């Protein structure tokens, strides 16, 4: 491996900007770190270069641990967005800078310089000053300068950011060519997904300091595992659907399960899932029998945009039975984005306001256990108030999902279990108060699988404690934790608690359980978490740990559905920290696998 990052964390004033990133980049690989601004990608690059120290973790280059090695001894070449050329030096002096530092002889320096100038197609420009070159040429000089000392690793920080489209494309080709020719391991940071697709052997997508997913461009585009990657890499319609044994159901419409839909949810029960539909996979037809693909819904063309090769269409889904459960962005507005090629446009011309039938050629189900939120309270007003809780609003916004409300007048009251009512799909949200534990029991008895207990005005947590009461809940709890943590810039801490009187001989089992949990989180979900082992009583130990610092949250995996009050009650009614309960009665095999 050329570059190995192991649990790299970098904090600014206590807030992690790079959060537990582990990564292996192979020899000669072109790796692109993709993410929005502020995602920590540039900080990570600077950490690899040695210009920013790390607070935790290790960095190795070609097997050499360089975590504490100064930038000038790491043997990396770095190219900056603003070129960072030495303006008082000629092109020749700029390129020879690293060679002069190394006291190379003038003759050898000149030879190497000629080589490099040929490589970046700038022969004869030796005696120019940077100010006399165009932006594209300056960046070529910067690339040549970064390669002069034969670095083992080339790092590029948004190298095309300051260039216009045509030059950008040309320079992109040059860099790819140079990289191939030299076979140098390269890491490029960008926020431009097109650039990432054009250059990368492999892409790593970062958000909120975390490395969310890695993979080959095509793989990531067609099978994203997270909402963020699905919507950041190209356009995507995120649709809430129900997975049944027969296939995926959107409202009344059912799309047959096909090979393109990995069967991740084997449970007998229906599950709410998040489906990704790319705009180009949507088909538009005048009538249902003219549809070549599976019927999805019908709607009205709201907007038509001609963009050259493609036509972009926004379709408002008809309210009513067919449209139920479809939400493309979380704002609750039922809009679908579609694109059509010239060929498709000729076959069926449409105009704004027209009623059309919408079909879908391919859907991808996100393997995330968290689909949508339902704020639940005894009255409608209280449920509505919950929707505006900052933490819930933030989560829904980041997860691009919706929050619906549900009034349950008998919430938390003992009574008949068999009332006919709709199942609790997605995550049910209730307020934290003295009776919360009874509401939790009530919801668990009615099949709720995830329950979020929110104290008033809870802020976004900085640390999430994870605990499960039964080893069988490990997979489910970890899957939910990973899903939540992708949307928060918080650290994960798994807390295992063994009874006080555990014999010493069995304590090593506890340690092994910690390691197993850690490696599963990392392998299946790319989630890095720290671990702690405590001895004592579950509720007491967790409360003590949660009370230590403000800004913490608890994710708790439980199996039992009744009689919680005695042992766990105090955790839910504290009103100081949010708790997310993950409840599963089936064994681990029934749980979603994969990240």
């Amino acid at each position, binding site marked *: 491996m050329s570059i190995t990052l192991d649990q790299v964390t970098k904090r600014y004033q206590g807030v992690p900007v790079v959060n537990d990133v582990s990564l292996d980049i192979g020899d000669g690989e072109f790796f692109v770190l993709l993410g929005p601004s502020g995602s920590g990608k540039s900080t990570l690059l600077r950490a690899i270069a040695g210009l920013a120290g790390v607070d935790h973790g290790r960095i190795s280059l070609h097997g050499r641990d360089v975590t504490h090695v100064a*930038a000038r001894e790491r043997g990396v070449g770095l190219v900056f967005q603003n070129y960072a050329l030495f303006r008082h030096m000629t092109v020749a002096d700029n390129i020879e800078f690293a060679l002069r530092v190394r006291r190379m002889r003038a003759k050898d320096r000149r030879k190497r310089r000629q080589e490099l100038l040929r490589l970046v197609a700038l022969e004869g420009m030796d005696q120019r000053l940077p100010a006399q070159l165009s932006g594209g040429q300056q960046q070529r000089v910067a690339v040549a300068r970064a390669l002069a000392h034969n670095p083992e690793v080339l790092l590029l920080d948004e190298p095309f950011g300051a260039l216009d489209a045509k030059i950008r494309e040309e320079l992109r080709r040059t860099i790819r060519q140079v990289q191939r020719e030299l076979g140098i391991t390269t890491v490029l940071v960008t926020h431009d997904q097109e650039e990432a697709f054009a250059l990368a052997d492999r892409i790593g997508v970062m958000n909120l300091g975390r490395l969310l997913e890695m993979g080959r461009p095509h793989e990531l585009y067609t099978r994203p595992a997270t909402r963020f990657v699905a919507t950041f890499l190209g356009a995507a319609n995120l649709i809430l659907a129900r997975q049944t044994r027969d296939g995926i159901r959107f409202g009344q419409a059912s799309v047959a399960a096909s090979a393109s839909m990995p069967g991740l949810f084997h449970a007998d029960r229906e599950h709410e899932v998040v489906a990704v539909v790319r705009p180009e996979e949507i088909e538009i037809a005048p009538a249902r029998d003219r549809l070549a693909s599976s019927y999805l819904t019908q709607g009205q063309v709201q907007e038509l945009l001609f963009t050259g090769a493609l036509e972009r269409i926004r379709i408002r889904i008809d309210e009513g039975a067919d449209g139920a459960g479809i939400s493309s962005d979380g704002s609750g507005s039922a809009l679908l984005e579609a694109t059509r090629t010239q060929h498709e446009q000729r076959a069926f011309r449409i105009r704004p306001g027209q009623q059309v039938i919408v079909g879908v050629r391919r859907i991808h189900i996100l393997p995330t256990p968290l689909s949508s939120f339902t704020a639940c309270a005894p009255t409608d007003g209280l449920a509505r108030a919950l929707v505006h809780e900052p933490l819930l609003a933030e989560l829904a916004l980041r997860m691009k999902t919706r929050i619906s409300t549900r009034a349950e007048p008998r919430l938390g009251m003992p009574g008949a279990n068999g009332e006919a009512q709709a199942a609790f799909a997605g995550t049910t949200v209730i307020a934290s108060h003295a009776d919360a534990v009874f509401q939790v029991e009530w919801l668990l008895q009615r099949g709720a699988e995830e329950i979020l207990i929110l104290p008033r005005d809870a802020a976004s947590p900085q640390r999430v404690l994870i605990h499960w009461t039964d080893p069988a809940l490990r997979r489910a709890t970890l899957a939910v934790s990973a899903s939540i943590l992708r949307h928060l810039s918080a650290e994960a801490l798994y807390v295992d608690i063994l009874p006080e009187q555990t014999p010493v001989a069995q304590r090593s089992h506890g340690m092994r359980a910690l390691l197993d949990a850690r490696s599963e989180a990392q392998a299946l979900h790319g989630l890095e978490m720290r671990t702690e082992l405590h001895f004592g009583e579950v509720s007491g130990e967790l409360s003590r740990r949660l009370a230590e610092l403000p800004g913490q949250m608890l994710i708790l995996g439980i199996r039992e559905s009744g009689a919680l009050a005695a042992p766990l009650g105090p955790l839910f009614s504290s009103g100081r920290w949010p708790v997310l309960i993950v409840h599963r009665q089936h064994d681990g095999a029934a749980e979603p696998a994969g990240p």
Partner: protein
Amino acid sequence: MRSIRQPSVLPGFALTFGFTTFFLSTIVLIPLAALVLMTASMHWHEFLHVVLSPRALGSYRLSFGASMLAATINLVFGFIIAWTLVRYEFPGRKLIDALIDMPFALPTAVSGIALTSVFAENGWIGSYLHTLGIKVAYTWVGVTVALTLIGLPFAVRSVQPALLEVQRDLEDAAETLGAGWFYVFRRIILPTVLPALLTGFTLAFARAVGEYGSVIFIAGNLPMKTEITPLLIVIRLEEFDYKGAAALGFVMLVISFVVLLTINLLQAWGRRRIVAVSR
């Protein structure tokens, strides 16, 4: 076409240029010309006798030597202060930033008296230096101290904006290319801020040459030893020897002009090396 004149972004060039020439003439050129004329009315032999007298030569040496030394000290420490103010964030930064300008605002006589009382043999600092055998007040060292004090703001304020322009990226780039901090300083930072450093040096030097108020208190004013040229001119004036005063003033004018011109040429050369910095 209503106007055949080229419209300019800023109107009123004719008026402002006229004002500039008028102003410069009244305030700068005509008084200087009077100085030259007054000198010209002297006999050649008489002139040489005045300007080459041992007392005059001693005063030139002190005036220009101490000014040069003070400007050099300011160059070094002004750079360090500017660097600290630009690059670091620390409590009290604003206060220090404001303190730099104090010598601008203080009447020079006040700084002179303050310096004398501190550096005199029985002063706070002077008494310690005295035990070490160093005399500051009433020697050329005291003159240099006074000139350093009044020149400091010029050095700092000239270098500060230039340092702000040195991007961190440049240092980072140099570091990844293998350069140590001293190499980065010598090859990257220094060349970039050199023009500004020279400007700071020039201003501090020019200010020091013309300084009178603060120096006369700390200098002791012993002829041949601690007497600066401006003081000698004042002495001549008090003796009603206007021609002698004018002759000395003329010499100062010429030397200052040559020094400033040299520095300006150096600076122009330095600028050309980093053409179009703002591009």
